[in-house]
C-alpha cells in the first residue's frame, strides 16, 4: 500500500516530526511504500542542514535524509511555507537575492501541488502536526 505523509511542525519543538518518521520507517519496513513526505507549516524547518542538536539527542534531519536515501522517499518542502520561514535552496536563494541557503541533502523545495498530487496518488494520507 502507498502512504503519503504530511509533517506540519518543526523539529524538536513538537513530537510530530518524530512520530511521522517512526511511522514512515515502520511502513517501509513492513513492505509498504512511502513515495513522498510533504513538509508544510513549520514542518519546513525539519529540512535545514544548519541544525546542531546536542550530541545525546537524535538528529531529526539526518534521520529523514537517511531514510529517504535508503528507500527513495521524495522529501518535499512547501515553497510558500518555506519562504515565510527562511528555508531556501541554492536556486531560491539566487532568485530571491539572498546570500545563503540552508536546505539539507535529500530534501527539495516545491509547490503545494505536490501535496494534492500525493493525496491523489497514495492509498492513505497521514497527517502529523500540533
Amino acid at each position, binding site marked *: 500500500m502507498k502512504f503519503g505523509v*504530511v509533517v*506540519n511542525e518543526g523539529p524538536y519543538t513538537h513530537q510530530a516530526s518524530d512520530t511521522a518518521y517512526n511511522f514512515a520507517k515502520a511502513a517501509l519496513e513492513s513492505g509498504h511504500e512511502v513515495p513522498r513526505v510533504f513538509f508544510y507549516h513549520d514542518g519546513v524547518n525539519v529540512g535545514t542542514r544548519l541544525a546542531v542538536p546536542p550530541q545525546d539527542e537524535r538528529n531529526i534531519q539526518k534521520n529523514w535524509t537517511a531514510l529517504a536515501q535508503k528507500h527513495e522517499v521524495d522529501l518535499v518542502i512547501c515553497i510558500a*511555507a518555506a519562504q515565510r520561514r527562511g528555508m531556501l535552496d541554492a536556486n531560491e536563494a539566487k532568485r530571491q537575492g539572498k546570500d545563503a541557503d540552508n536546505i539539507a541533502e535529500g530534501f527539495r523545495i516545491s509547490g*503545494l501541488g505536490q501535496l*494534492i498530487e500525493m*493525496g*491523489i496518488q497514495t492509498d492513505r*494520507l497521514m*497527517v502529523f*502536526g500540533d
Partner: protein
Amino acid sequence: MADNIKKFLYVNRRAPYGTIYALEALEVVLIGAAFDQDVSLAFFDDGVFQLTKGQNTEEIGVKNFSPTFRALGDYDVTKLYVEQESLDERGLTAADLQEITYEDEDDDWAEKPSLKIVSRAELSDIMADQDVVLSF
C-alpha cells in the same frame, strides 16, 4: 481523469490569526482547486471563527485573509460545511458569518450559498465519506 477523482476534505478546527494554520489551509485549498477533485471544507470547533464577518486586522498588523473565502466560488470550491453546534457554543448564528456564494453553471449560473450549516451528526457523516482528510 474522472476515474481518478477523490473526495478531499479540509478540516478547519482553529481560529484565525492566533496561529497561521487557517491561512495556510486556505492556501492549500486554492492550489488544490486546480486538480479537479471533489472538494469539501469542514468548519467546526474554533474553525467557525474563520468565517465571521467584519474582521479588521489593521491594529495587529497581520494580513486579513477573510475576504479570500468569498473568492472560493470562482475556484469551484462550493461546499463549505459549518457545524451548528459549534456556532451555538460560541454564541454565533448564521447572520454572524460572511455571505459566501457561487454561481451554479448547471442552473443557468444562479447564485447559490456555499456555506451549508449542518448538525454535528450530519458533519460526522460527511467526514466519514471522504478519501483524503487534510487537517491543519
